């Protein structure tokens, strides 16, 4: 064993350069993984601290016990509690203070007239709680709101909106309220609670603008007297609370808040990053395997000599594995340090982009160190295993043979296996897409397809390179021909090198196709079901924004240019035990501005006890017109509705429609999410839009968009997501490029004499460089084309499977332009990867190359 180790060490020392690529691949993968884990832990811990600090004065929270959660939401909607309860609670022994906490949506408008925030995190407004210990926000400057119209806002929001004490601005609740900033507050010692915006108003203002009825609060915060524990306080409170109202400890409430942020943001964020480090490591596997395979092949003579001198198979295998271990351990360890560096860098970067990242030490858990280390070592050793075993199998006689390069093509067995796998993959995928829609089946098929592509790589590489390189002979003459034939030399090596890039490109194409399909879906949704001329909405998504004033619909309706203006509000209720989103609107007007498909029954007279539902929901619940449906609201009351209409299309109108009157008894803060407007005949689009814009200006200046603009803005979030995905995938592509460069460098080393000969008989340096670069481009082209094909197929699978498995209809779209860009990037990447090896090859000393034995 000692001998193996010594051999490995001397070989590593002698061939540092060869392992540089492997080292980098492992390093990048591990660093990314470790960075993700450390950052996730650190963020979670800092949110914990922040909420802990902010709510440390609150010992108990009193609130409604039941929450209704609709699909796709992490935080349920709760019925408010009576503010009168405060007096009852204050009398309970052990209570030092109690204050109602009124909360609603309120979006501030910044100095430049644009709303602040709203792109994800909530925009909150509430009453300013006088007791500083019960208030999660601490007054930092100015004073608390004393009279109507005065507000305190958090410092982070003030900075983002360029607002100062004394400034007057608009708060959309969604009705525009004129407010004056009189104070700035901090949250848990930070300028704000992440990017959440907060506006604190007087209790009277809060009740007026944020609740449906005065005397209601989201919860009541309670502080315990000296010597009273939190649980003790909760136990004392519980008996005096009415039915349906509960008390929880302040700590439990803080934990709930942290969990909510975690599940909404952190978990999604870290899962996202973990998936990409997985892709990066998968790509790295190919690069590493390839390096070891080539190194072992190049060392055939050396290994054979060792075997001839009496080294056992095991010793030869072990020496290769020890080499791999050394690279793996070093690269992984350095990767860990790099990962911590990445996390630290992000911690420094976040505040710079306006995301308050609480200061404090990085949280480095044992898991976030052990996992990346283990993954790095396993990936590296796993990749080196096969080449190591092959090294051990070297026959002693191989020492006497001339060449060491594996030029064998693909075996028929491989072709058969690959084609079999591909057929199986297509079969499984198609049955998951077409027969019984299931994301699980489709996903299995997708993985099988990937494996099939990798297995088939060497089979396809010969033909593919020949076809792709066909034009090269004509374009670049003998340089092109040489490049093409060099790429054809070792089909297995070419395929393995290209596979790494293929996976990267496949994932990029998959997202590109999926993104384009999502956009097409939005476009189709809007053009199919939106029959109006303009849409009014506030550009926000996630929990942000405050929606539209419900009075806007009436104001727009009164315009002479407008035929119909219908506002769509949102309500929640439980149907059949599951939370559902309700569309609260005027059903008659709805029918005029939205295409609802075939309608059975009539939307005309839903009244306060009628409901309209989509065919799909009707089928699911087994309902037809005339049937009764039982809806349970957040106040715990259950009401029976009669199904008066069943309609075909649900895309914008939602699955359940009730009238404003029917919703009124259960409403919370009033807001519309969308206002659809159709013009009178003869009113031009420009004129109509201008009129609506003018009317909307008095209601917080929401966005007025034509149908096309509306469809496009709905797709804006997708572009943002794609940009992020591309940025992350750049890492995988980078690793693939390192792989190509590494393989080329090793190949050039093998071809030293040949290159020397070419230079001797008159190949210029420029020609030599071009030859190497074109080979690189060809290998990249093979990977790119494979990746595009695989990615487009998987994109189609994902879209179709989502279409089948989810409620909403998906449209499939192939974006030729974007895919062409992906192809171009792949080829350019190939050319870039070839740059360094080409330069090194050109620097070759002709004489020495010829003389090399």
């Amino acid at each position, binding site marked *: 064993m000692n001998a193996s180790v010594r051999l490995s060490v001397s070989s590593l020392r002698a061939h540092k350069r060869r392992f540089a690529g492997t080292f980098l691949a492992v390093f990048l993968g591990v660093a990314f993984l470790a960075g993700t884990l450390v950052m996730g832990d650190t963020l979670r811990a800092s949110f914990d601290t922040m909420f802990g600090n902010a709510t440390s004065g609150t010992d108990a929270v009193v609130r409604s016990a039941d929450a209704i959660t609709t699909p796709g939401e992490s935080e349920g909607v709760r019925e408010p509690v009576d503010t009168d309860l405060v007096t009852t609670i204050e009398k309970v022994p052990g209570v030092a203070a109690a204050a109602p906490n009124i909360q609603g949506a309120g979006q501030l408008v910044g100095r430049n007239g644009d709303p602040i925030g709203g792109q994800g995190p909530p925009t909150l407004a509430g009453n300013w709680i006088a007791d500083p210990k019960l208030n999660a926000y601490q007054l930092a400057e100015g004073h608390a709101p004393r009279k109507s119209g005065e507000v305190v806002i958090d410092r982070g929001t003030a900075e983002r909106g360029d607002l100062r004490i004394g400034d007057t601005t608009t708060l959309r609740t969604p009705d525009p309220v004129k407010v004056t900033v009189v104070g700035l507050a901090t949250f848990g010692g930070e300028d704000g609670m992440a990017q959440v915006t907060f506006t604190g108003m007087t209790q009277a203002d809060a009740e007026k603008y944020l609740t449906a009825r005065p005397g209601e609060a989201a919860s009541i915060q309670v502080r315990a007297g000296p010597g009273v524990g939190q649980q003790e306080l909760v136990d004392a409170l519980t008996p005096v609370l009415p039915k349906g109202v509960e008390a929880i400890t302040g700590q439990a409430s803080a934990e709930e808040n942290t969990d909510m942020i975690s599940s909404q943001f952190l978990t999604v964020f870290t899962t996202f990053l973990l998936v990409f480090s997985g892709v990066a490591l998968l790509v790295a596997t190919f690069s590493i395997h390839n390096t070891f395979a080539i190194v072992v092949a190049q060392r055939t003579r050396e290994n054979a000599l060792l075997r001839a001198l009496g080294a056992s198979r095991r010793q030869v295998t072990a020496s290769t594995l020890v080499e791999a271990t050394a690279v793996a351990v070093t690269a992984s360890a350095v990767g860990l340090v790099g990962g911590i560096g990445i996390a630290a860098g992000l911690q420094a970067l976040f505040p710079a982009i306006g995301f308050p990242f609480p200061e404090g030490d990085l949280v480095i858990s044992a898991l976030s160190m052990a996992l990346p280390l283990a993954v790095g070592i396993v990936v590296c050793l796993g990749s080196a295993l096969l080449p190591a075993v092959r090294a051990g199998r070297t026959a002693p006689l191989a020492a006497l043979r001339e060449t060491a390069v594996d030029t064998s093509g693909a075996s028929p067995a491989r072709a058969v296996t690959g084609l079999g796998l591909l057929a199986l993959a297509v079969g499984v995928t198609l049955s998951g897409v077409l027969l019984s829609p299931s994301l699980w089946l489709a996903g299995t098929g997708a993985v099988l397809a990937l494996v099939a592509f990798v297995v088939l790589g060497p089979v396809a590489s010969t033909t593919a390179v020949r076809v792709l390189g066909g034009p090269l002979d004509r374009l670049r003459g003998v340089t092109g021909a040489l490049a093409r034939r060099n790429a054809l030399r070792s089909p297995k090596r070419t395929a393995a090198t290209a596979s790494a890039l293929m996976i990267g490109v496949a994932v990029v194409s998959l997202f590109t196709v999926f993104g384009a399909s999502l956009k097409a879906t939005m476009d189709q949704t809007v053009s199919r079901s939106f029959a109006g001329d303009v849409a009014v909405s506030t550009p926000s998504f996630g929990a942000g924004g405050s929606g539209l004033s419900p009075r806007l619909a009436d104001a727009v309706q009164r315009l002479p240019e407008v035929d119909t203006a219908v506002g769509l509000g949102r309500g929640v209720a439980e149907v059949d035990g599951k939370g559902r989103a309700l569309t609260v609107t005027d059903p008659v007007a709805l029918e005029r501005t939205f295409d609802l498909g075939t309608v059975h029954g009539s939307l005309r007279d839903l009244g306060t006890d009628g409901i309209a539902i989509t065919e799909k929901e009707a089928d699911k619940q087994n309902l037809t017109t005339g049937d009764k449906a039982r809806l349970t609201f957040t106040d715990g009351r259950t009401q029976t509705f009669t199904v008066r209409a069943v309609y075909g299309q649900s895309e914008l109108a939602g699955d359940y429609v009730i009238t404003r009157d029917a919703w009124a008894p259960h409403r919370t803060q009033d807001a519309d999410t969308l206002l659809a407007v159709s013009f009178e005949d003869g009113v031009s689009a420009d004129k109509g839009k201008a009129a609506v814009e003018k009317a909307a200006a008095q209601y917080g200046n929401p966005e007025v968009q034509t149908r096309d603009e509306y469809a496009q803005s709905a797709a804006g979030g997708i572009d943002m997501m794609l940009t992020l995905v591309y940025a992350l995938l750049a890492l995988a592509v980078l690793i693939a490029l390192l792989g190509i460069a590494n393989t080329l460098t090793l190949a050039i080393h093998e071809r030293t004499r040949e290159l020397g000969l070419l230079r001797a008989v*008159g190949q210029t*340096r420029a020609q030599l460089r071009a030859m190497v670069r074109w080979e690189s481009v060809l290998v990249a082209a093979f990977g790119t084309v494979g990746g595009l094909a695989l990615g487009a197929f998987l994109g189609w699978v994902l879209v179709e499977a989502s279409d089948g498995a989810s409620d909403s209809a998906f449209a499939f779209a192939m974006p030729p332009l974007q895919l062409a860009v992906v192809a171009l990037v792949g080829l350019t990447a190939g050319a870039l990867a070839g740059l360094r090896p080409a330069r090194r090859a050109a620097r070759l000393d002709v004489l020495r190359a010829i003389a090399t034995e």
Partner: protein
Amino acid sequence: MTATTATTITPTAARVVDAVKVYGSGDTVVRALDGVSVDFPVGRFTAIMGPSGSGKSTLMHCAAGLDTLTSGTAHIGDTELSSLDDRRLTLLRRDRVGFVFQAFNLVPTLTVAENITLPLDLAGGKGGKGDSGDEEWLDALIDVVGLRDRLHHRPSELSGGQQQRVAVARAFAGRPDIVFADEPTGNLDSRSGEEVLGLLGRTVRRTARTVVMVTHDPVAAAHADEVVFLADGRLVDRMESPTADKVLDRMKAFEVPS
């Protein structure tokens, strides 16, 4: 500076004047060439002989533009090599010089035919140098080396002797001013070696080309018109119309004193 004009005008195809080549420095300094001046006349087959370490390969490399002299000058035709940068040197080798090396003469990915035309193709392929004439020239050349039935084979499918014959054909394909052969028969059995040497000699005589061959084999040297003897980096003798025995005797004379 086209390839074909120079041959008839200049009396020498290549020459070196006061060639000095020094490797290393300080204690380990080696003078591989120590003031060699020699002409290689047009239309002649010259052999450079000498014991190992005599500097014969270095002389050839410097004369052919593969290596640079420490001092002195090397010329191909009228062109002084030290004034050329790497690109010009490369183009000169491509257009005006042919090479036959001891081994590894052929690009394994190219066919026999492609290997033969490689320098022409590197120069820009067909049409670059007056094609019809070249076509005839190449055709004749292929017949001379006797490989017409192997044109579409890969080098790995040929025997060592056949490979060297292809290399000879490649060396003459571009009608170079001069062909340098570095131990062209070193890796061949005597029969194949004889074939290759015969081929070189025939080509020189039939086509009035110039060949300079480095060898340590007196039998090989006997195929030349003239033998130049090198020892310790110096030109020590020249021999017209050599025979194997005469060359061998001359060589023995070197070995005894050193």
